[in-house]
């Protein structure tokens, strides 16, 4: 295990924000956020690293951020969306669906379950962009509606409405295939 303190990333005392502490506390959540968009562990890790480079570039003003968690998620989210333009997440979906199925059902049912999950992931990709984004972000249990709205730069009511539409549309499309 790498020693976080060994990297000497503690901030000057007056800035009172410990970047290595942020890495320790939030890198997992940022990884999940990026992974939801990209579905590639390698790409998601690159996003987390790039996000903390951005954080370090702002280290002189970190004290101005009231909720560090929301800001960090927003950085990771934006970087993941930017990276998504260059890759095709659906290419990773079959593998991710297999991993999910293997964790949730017995081996003899895993193949059929993986197929169902790959279908759902495919339908998520076919949702309108705004609905898809709010649905993926809603999968993060750590985030409430107000925080999702801040990440997406929308109002809370608008975020709720988008999420409702996304879930309804997705259910209809999946149901239509059954």
């Amino acid at each position, binding site marked *: *295990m*790498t020693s*976080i303190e060994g990297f*000497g*990333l503690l901030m000057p005392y007056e800035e009172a924000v410990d*970047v*290595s502490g942020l*890495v*320790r506390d939030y*890198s*997992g959540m940022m*990884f*999940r956020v990026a*992974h*939801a968009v990209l579905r590639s*562990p390698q790409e998601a*890790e*690159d996003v*987390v*690293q*790039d996000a*903390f*480079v*951005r954080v*370090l*570039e*702002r280290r002189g*003003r970190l004290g*101005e*951020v*009231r*909720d560090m968690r*929301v*800001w960090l998620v927003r950085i990771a989210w934006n970087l993941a969306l*930017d*990276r998504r333009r*260059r890759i095709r997440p659906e290419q990773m979906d079959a593998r991710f669906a297999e991993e*999910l199925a293997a*964790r949730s059902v017995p081996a003899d049912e895993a193949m059929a*379950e993986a197929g*169902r*999950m790959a279908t*759902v*992931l495919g339908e*998520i990709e076919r949702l309108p962009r705004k609905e898809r984004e709010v*649905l*993926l972000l*809603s*999968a*993060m*249990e750590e985030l409430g509606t*107000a*925080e999702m709205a*801040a990440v997406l*730069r929308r109002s809370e009511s608008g975020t709720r409405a988008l999420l409702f539409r996304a*879930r309804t549309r997705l*259910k209809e499309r*999946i*149901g239509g295939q*059954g």
Partner: protein
Amino acid sequence: MKDDAMERVLAGLGKVEAPNGLEGRVLRRLAEGGTARPRRGWVLGTGLAIAAVLCGAWMVEWEFVTLPQTVKLSEMGVPGTLGRRQDVLQGLKPGPVTVDRTAEVVSLAKRRTRRKQGSAEVPVSYPAPSAPLTEEERMLRQIALTRNQPAFELLNEATREAALAASEADFNEFLRSSPFGGGH
């Protein structure tokens, strides 16, 4: 059943675990150079490094192409060592054998080999002497090997400045407009 699948997928996305060692790798990157903001001189260095890397790669590739073809010629019935030597020496002027002359023989032999392969226009060269890569060259190699397209695009100064400006604007907008932003 289908609704359940949707919920299970969303729950699965929300429970993905970060790979082992993620924190350490992030901290290592930050400690190694994540703190450095782009410098003006870096652009010139990058240009030179790109040229050096491309030149090196070109030379290495040339060697890889040449060596097997030389072997192939001997397999195709071209007279053996003696025949090749005679062939090479026909192009030399008479004179004493020196270090320079040896280099000339090798150079001429390579040129002849390439002419036989129908590539007479290709200039004769040697691999660059081995030397440790500079920091910029290592970064370029890393970017190329990992196919990190965003990082590659940031090598362009205008793109980099635009990205920094956008990042700054986003930060200011977050502080100004979000209830989670302004701390004072």
